[in-house]
């Protein structure tokens, strides 16, 4: 292998040669620079290959041919190789990116660039402390030079002032560092880091202060929270390509320098590192919330990410051999993501976050943006995800829960503002100036994207678990990215056949409980996708999102290990987020959905980490073996996570907006199918952990109350809704409340009822959403009081809605009654009484909003503008009719689905099963024979109907205004259709129960965060001197905190 020192030699040689070239031979100079950078990258890549795969040993390069204390030595181990590769590659790509700027400024800027990259590689390689100082100063000087590349140097002095502030800060840092070095040398007698580490500097006289000065100087390079005003100004004003180098390369080099220093400092300094790191991570992320300039936001985000890596460095004592896997996972994800975003910001003209909506015309660039956001937030399948999982596992094992909570909180905020930004891109109206279409810059960006996905694959391989990228469902979903150019109907066929094929391939492997869920997710999904034929064009972004959700759902069912379960959970969350975001006004709702779901996912992550207690592979089944002191907390964390997905009361405010604003064929998917993932999670949890107790309170009793309250309040809120889809959304909250109640009963019939609700809710909710979507598509509005009298124009939709509401309200002939019957038998045999009372109130309440739905849309007075509307599109009607058939079949023969599950549940809840003999279903208390009921009601109904038809065979068909109107002539259809504020008396009586307290609660939290961010960011006044004060103050404070306390 080529010796590592050639990296530095190549850079210096190239810089030297450039000196000889004529001023106007710019092309040649540029080529030489690129060649040098390429060579340096090739050398470090060679070392990465040798050390990583060939199994070679770390090599020490003795520069002066003698042992360290008397000469500087460089070391090339695996970490150094990876980091130098990262630095050199970033340098090369940025050089490519800066082509025309470098051409304009000539060869002097090329030299400065080469020196900068060489200095960064030097920082990583050198093992000598003074040499480290020299390389740091080289970085300072070259950074000072590179900042001036920024294009707005001519226009205003922002870049200049940022550079000057940086130099002020670096002066202070160099003073501290030099004093620290000399005293450390004086104490230990050597300048070599390994030598100092061996000499146990702490014990020597004055050693602690010396180390502190060195340590705090290098940490100041990492831009810690109070002392990073100068860094933000650089990020905001410098050329984006330089900011990419500054955040990815300089950040990585400085981090590794601190890591080397910590070898000297020993374990006692790790808590200080963790404290500084976590404060920087959380506070910088919070401050990023209130940013509107894109580069300054990226600056805050990069400071936060470096803070996170610094926290990981601070945890090196407990992370053991996974230390590099986690640290590099987070670092590389940050580097690639941040560099990519900076390069992307070079293409966008406007600097506001909403100006990025110019990207909308370029799907590839949006895919790039998404890849970088995924890298930063740490979503599967990217390295950050694996790193976060392992980190959580170690932290939970060590009991450092506060730290874990802070990390997850910071990650949640970061996800929040990045997804908010993505929402702006997709939804805000596009600015006049389009995207700069410079092919070279786009090549650089896509290089970063490819690097991101390569790292994802690599981290999957290294993780020792099933590599996510090799999971068949995920691959199938990602394949749709390649099919984006095809027409929508073709992709729809591929998607449906994929789902059905997957079911046909694997349906034998599931037990009855999972079989029901798999049928709903795959066959049900295929059925819902039928409705997607009604659209035209390419529908860019719909199928990858949808298939990602279905992939997540399917992998969730098949997951046995907690890691796969969690990965599937996050995949389905992201997939459904993309689906919801497609709605016209769905941006804020999709964002709140994403944040709630991610918060839920993080609580699940914490729950699994806590339960695993250090074990690398923790299966779902082994939830039952969790030790008693931890078990209730694990139960709570996991239950909260799953309940955010089933929108239990308190965590439900995202659901109405998300389901109502989604597209016509997305609402059924998100509402009918996605909510079941939460229920499946709860089932696995309760099957595993059974009834838990915390301080004497049974946790499933608490869930009973939550389920009951969700049922009641969900239904009550649905009554007073004017928007049809929001009404259905609130009703979903109510239905999920029922299912949660059934599960929490923890007896045989309770679970059977929950499953009955799972099936019923899927069928009728998808059907109702489709029919309401079809009506909204035809009438152009979702407000119910604007519709009316559509029964003659949209008869099939009417039939679907009527069958739907009969099923939902639980009136006998249809399957809803089955759910209620099992519910009654379940509560008969359970010993809880009070929560049931709330359920009893919510049973009839469901009746009200269902009637309101059908009355205001289909019956009553037909408005003028709706006189010529056609029936809903065929492809929306077909699935509805299939659902009607399903409902009737399920009403007649519930046994086909429930019988097997009933027997399967016997081994969890032995007593209380149902008897399935012939047509009659008997339980311990009562009996129910669906077929007889249907026949009897049918016969009576038909008899009376034909009798009435016979008697009224000569009836005169009249129109809408031939009504008894107290002998007056009705004025207009709008004034005679009673639909607005339909249940006014009910609101007078029970209105107090639907005041939006929960929304108020969550709004105050977010407002508090924004206010705090707005307040704290005032700290950066923009004055270089104040930044110097901050730096010194930071040094003094850390000193006293470390020494004094």
């Amino acid at each position, binding site marked *: 292998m080529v010796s590592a020192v050639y990296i530095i030699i190549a850079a210096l040689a190239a810089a030297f040669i450039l000196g000889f070239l004529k001023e106007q031979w710019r092309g040649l100079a540029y080529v030489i620079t690129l060649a040098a950078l390429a060579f340096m990258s090739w050398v470090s890549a060679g070392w990465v290959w040798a050390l990583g795969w060939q199994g070679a040993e770390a090599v020490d390069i003795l520069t002066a041919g003698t042992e360290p204390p008397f000469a500087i030595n460089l070391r090339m181990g695996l970490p150094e190789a990876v980091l130098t590769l990262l630095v050199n590659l970033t340098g090369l790509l940025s050089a490519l990116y800066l082509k025309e700027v470098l051409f304009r400024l000539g060869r002097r800027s090329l030299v400065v660039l080469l020196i900068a990259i060489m200095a960064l590689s030097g920082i990583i390689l050198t093992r000598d402390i003074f040499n480290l100082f*020299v390389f740091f100063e080289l970085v300072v*000087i070259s950074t000072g030079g590179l900042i001036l590349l920024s294009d707005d140097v001519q226009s205003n002095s922002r870049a200049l*002032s940022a550079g*000057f502030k940086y130099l002020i800060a670096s002066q202070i840092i160099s003073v501290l560092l030099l004093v620290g*070095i000399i005293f450390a040398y004086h104490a230990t007698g050597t300048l070599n880091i390994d030598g100092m580490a061996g000499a146990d500097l702490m014990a020597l006289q004055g050693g602690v202060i010396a180390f502190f000065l060195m340590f705090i100087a290098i940490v100041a390079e990492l831009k810690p929270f109070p002392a990073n005003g100068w860094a933000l100004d650089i990020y905001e*004003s410098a050329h984006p390509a330089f900011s990419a180098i500054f955040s990815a390369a300089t950040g990585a080099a400085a981090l590794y320098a601190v890591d080397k220093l910590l070898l000297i400092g020993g374990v006692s300094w790790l808590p200080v590192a963790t404290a500084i790191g976590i404060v920087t991570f959380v506070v910088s992320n919070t401050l990023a919330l209130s940013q509107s300039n894109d580069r300054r936001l990226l600056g805050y985000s990069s400071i936060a990410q470096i803070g996170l890596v610094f926290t990981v460095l601070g945890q090196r004592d407990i992370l053991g051999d996974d230390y590099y896997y986690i640290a590099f996972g987070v670092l590389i994800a940050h580097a690639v993501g941040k560099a990519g975003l900076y390069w992307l910001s070079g293409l966008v003209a406007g600097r506001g976050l909403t100006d990025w909506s110019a990207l909308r015309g370029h799907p590839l660039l949006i895919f790039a943006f998404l890849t970088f956001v995924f890298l930063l937030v740490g979503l599967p399948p990217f390295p950050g995800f694996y790193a976060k999982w392992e980190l959580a596992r170690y932290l939970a094992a060590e009991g450092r829960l506060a730290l874990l909570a802070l990390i997850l909180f910071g990650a949640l905020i970061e996800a929040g503002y990045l997804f908010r930004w993505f929402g702006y891109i997709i939804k805000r109206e596009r600015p006049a100036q389009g995207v700069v279409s410079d092919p070279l810059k786009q090549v650089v960006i896509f290089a970063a994207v490819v690097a991101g996905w390569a790292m994802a694959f690599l981290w999957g391989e290294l993780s020792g678990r099933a590599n996510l990228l090799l999971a068949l469902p995920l691959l199938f979903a990602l394949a749709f990215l390649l099919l984006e150019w095809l027409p929508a109907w073709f992709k729809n066929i591929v998607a449906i056949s994929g789902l059905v094929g997957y079911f046909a391939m694997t349906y034998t492997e599931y037990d009855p409980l999972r079989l029901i869920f798999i049928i709903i997710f795959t066959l049900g999904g295929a059925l819902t996708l039928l409705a997607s034929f009604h659209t035209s064009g390419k529908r860019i972004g719909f199928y990858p999102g949808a298939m990602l959700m279905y992939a997540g759902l399917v992998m969730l069912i098949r997951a046995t290990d907690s890691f796969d379960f969690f990965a599937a959970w996050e995949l389905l969350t992201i997939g459904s987020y993309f689906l919801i975001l497609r709605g016209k006004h769905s941006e804020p709702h999709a964002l709140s959905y994403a944040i709630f779901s991610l918060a839920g996912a993080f609580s699940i992550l914490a729950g699994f980490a806590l339960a695993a207690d250090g074990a690398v592979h923790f299966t779902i089944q082994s939830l039952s073996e969790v030790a008693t002191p931890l078990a209730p907390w694990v139960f709570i964390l996991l239950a909260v996570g799953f309940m955010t997905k089933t929108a239990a009361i308190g965590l439900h405010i995202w659901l109405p907006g998300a389901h109502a604003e989604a597209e016509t064929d997305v609402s059924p998917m998100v509402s009918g199918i996605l909510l079941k993932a939460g229920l499946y999670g709860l089932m696995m949890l309760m099957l595993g952990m059974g009834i838990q107790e915390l301080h004497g309170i049974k946790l499933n009793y608490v869930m009973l109350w939550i389920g009951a309250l969700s049922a009641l309040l969900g239904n009550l809120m649905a009554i007073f809704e004017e928007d049809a889809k929001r009404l259905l959304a609130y009703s979903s909250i109510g239905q999920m409340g029922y299912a949660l109640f059934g599960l929490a009963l923890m007896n045989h019939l309770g679970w059977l009822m929950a499953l009955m609700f799972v099936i019923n809710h899927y069928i009728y909710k998808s059907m109702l959403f489709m029919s309401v979507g079809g009506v909204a598509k035809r009438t152009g509005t979702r407000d119910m009081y604007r519709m009316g009298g559509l029964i003659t124009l949209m008869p099939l939709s009417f039939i679907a809605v009527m069958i739907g509401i009969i099923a939902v309200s639980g009136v006998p002939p249809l399957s809803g009654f089955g759910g209620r019957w099992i519910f009654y038998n379940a509560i008969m045999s359970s010993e809880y009484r009070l929560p049931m009372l709330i359920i009893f109130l919510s049973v009839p309440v469901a009746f009200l909003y269902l009637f309101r739905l059908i009355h205001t849309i289909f019956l009553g007075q037909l408005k003028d503008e709706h006189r010529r509307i056609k029936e809903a599109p065929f492809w929306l009607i077909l699935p509805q009719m299939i659902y009607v058939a399903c409902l009737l079949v399920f009403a007649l023969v519930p046994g086909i689905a429930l019988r097997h599950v009933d027997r399967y549940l016997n081994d969890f809840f032995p007593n209380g099963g149902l008897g399935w003999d012939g047509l009659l279903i008997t339980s311990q208390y009562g009996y129910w024979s669906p077929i007889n009921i249907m026949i009897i009601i049918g016969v009576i109904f038909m008899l009376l109907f034909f009798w009435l038809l016979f008697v009224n065979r000569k009836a005169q068909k009249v129109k809408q205004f031939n009504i008894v109107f107290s002998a007056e002539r009705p004025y207009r259809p709008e004034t005679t259709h009673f639909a607005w504020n339909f249940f006014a008396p009910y609101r007078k009586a029970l209105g107090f129960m639907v005041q939006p307290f929960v929304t108020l609660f969550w709004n105050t939290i977010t407002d508090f965060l924004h206010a705090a961010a707005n307040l704290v960011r005032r700290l950066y006044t923009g004055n270089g*001197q104040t930044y110097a004060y901050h730096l010194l103050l930071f040094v003094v404070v850390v000193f006293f905190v470390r020494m004094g306390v």
Partner: protein
Amino acid sequence: MIAQLAMATGFALILIGFYGALTNRNILRMIVAFSVANTGVHLVLVAVGYMNGRTAPILDSAVSATEAVTRIIDPVPQALVLTAIVIGMGVTALMLAFAYKLYEKKRSLDIGKFTELRW
């Protein structure tokens, strides 16, 4: 005795430099203050290497190579200070270049004038 005196003056210069940099609003005054601080650091560097009763680490007729070990002070800080001085000079030169550019832009040398980038 001399070493402690040199060390003390070194630290004094550093503190004076910091004080000057933090209180003066004029950029040039700040640069001068920083160079004062730098010289203070260099003084400290050299003072640390001093040993009583020993001479400068120059191998010439006065001190031959063989007896050098007992006669000369620790040469390493001296070497370090050379590099430190060079680097200090480089950074100060860059700061002056920036100061000139800043003045060109805003016709003012007051650090408080350049606060467009904030919050």
